[in-house]
């Protein structure tokens, strides 16, 4: 494939999918109540934009707040667990256990504790994104080459010097890679919580729209979620390339 072709291939695929979708609905005569056409969804989005935007901001806000807390906690836990074999062995089973609980199941408990609304959504967004960050950061730190560790130890490097000069920088590519996954997961978390227990946010809006059979609006909600998700993913990809380009250029 030619380089220019390669660059535009993803865009062409996305457009292709939408065109196919549009044509398929038109030709097969699929009801709007089942699967609206992309053009209808777009129209619905503009039609309801004033109603959608506050919900979108709410979802973005809860996601970002939850995500920020998640990153702080995930990074600290990852550093702690990755830099000590004992902590790694002790805490890992518990983390795996917690992470395997479906997060939807946690929302009712959070509602019980904090009431319906923004707080459970933030907490769900936070909890759901901690695990991948912890796993990635701790792996990055724990897998420092034994030779390098011996070189550092023979220099009588203290633990924190080892961590600061080798472990942390080395785990950064893992960290930034996990951020891309974590931000999308955070969206999943906040939307789930909004759907189950909130009167605000895109999740809640979609729930109400679907109960009144406003299917184009439901899909318009999906669309805004996709757009926000992709935008944040793209932002973190750029940040990743800026911060840890050395890891990508290495052959």
């Amino acid at each position, binding site marked *: 494939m030619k380089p220019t072709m390669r660059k535009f291939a993803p865009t062409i695929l996305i457009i292709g999918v939408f065109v196919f979708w549009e044509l398929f609905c038109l030709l097969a005569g699929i009801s709007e109540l089942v699967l609206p056409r992309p053009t209808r969804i777009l129209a619905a989005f503009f039609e309801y934009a004033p109603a959608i935007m506050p919900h979108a901001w709410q979802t973005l806000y809860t996601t970002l707040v939850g995500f920020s807390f998640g990153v702080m906690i995930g990074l600290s836990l990852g550093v702690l667990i990755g830099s000590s074999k004992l902590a790694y062995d002790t805490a890992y089973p518990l983390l795996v256990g917690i992470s395997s609980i479906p997060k939807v199941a946690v929302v009712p408990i959070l509602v019980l504790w904090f009431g319906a609304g923004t707080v459970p959504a933030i907490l769900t967004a936070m909890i759901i994104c901690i695990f991948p960050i912890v796993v990635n950061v701790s792996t990055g730190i724990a897998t420092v080459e034994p030779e390098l560790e011996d070189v550092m130890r023979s220099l009588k490097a203290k633990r924190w*010097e080892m961590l600061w000069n080798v472990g942390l920088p080395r785990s950064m590519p893992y960290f930034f890679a996990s951020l891309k996954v974590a931000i999308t997961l955070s969206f999943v978390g906040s939307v789930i919580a909004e759907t189950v227990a909130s009167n605000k946010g895109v999740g809640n809006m979609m729930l109400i729209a679907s109960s009144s059979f406003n299917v184009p609006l439901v899909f318009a909600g999906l669309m805004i979620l996709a757009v926000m998700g992709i935008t944040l993913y793209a932002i973190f990809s750029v940040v990743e390339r800026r911060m840890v380009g050395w890891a990508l250029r290495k052959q």
Partner: protein
Amino acid sequence: MSMARFVELENVGVTFGQGPEQTEALQPTSLTVERGDFLAFVGPSGCGKSTILKLVSELLRPTTGNIFFGGRELGAKPVRVGMAFQSASLLPWMSVRDNVMLPLKIVPPFKSGFRSKKNGEYRDRADALLAQVGLEDFADKSPWQLSGGMMQRANLCRALIHDPDILLLDEPFGALDQFTREELWQTLQDLWIDRKSTVMLVTHDLREAAYLANRICVMSPRPGRIIDDRQVSFARPRPIDLTFDPDFVTLVQDLRGLIVHAPNVKKVDAT
């Protein structure tokens, strides 16, 4: 060259693990290394060569016996060690120069002045060392832009930048092709002649040991012990053609015979 006893191993033995899982890696061994000497360890795989280097660098504590450094017990006073392994393990997020300067950031007394001197004195020091091994044009490059041989040159610089009391090299050229390896022998010899560092080199390559070392210790199969300890007195600087000299070839053949026919203590016990 002063003949002071520099490193002394006194009946030092190492056993890994406990109970039935126990493996004796090193039989009680005594060894004295003089300041400024260049010592090479050769022997079959698993005989405890790396173990000896780890003992001297305090990465490992002996199970039995004592180690002395400059007359004092190891650990009493910090010993400055430079280490290099087969894999160069340079940090990919730093330039070659910053990699070389890494020990200055960690080892006293250099570390206290690191912030203020890293763009001045320390930088010049790293550049001078890099120039000595022929890497002057690569100081600003990233490690992944270097060939394997160049990485090992940088690795040697990193092991030497902080003027170590002792340089410990564990098969540093093991992964290089023959020509590159011989080039690096010469580089290492030049560095040693220039600095008169005390060097302990572990290698599988008997020619490498014979070319570089002043003294060669041959070890038996595991559990290792020193079965032969000999001086190598070819004049310095040794040209690479020395490796075709009949005396050199005889020495290498002798060493080979010692390793191939070394008594295996475990087998003797079993019969």
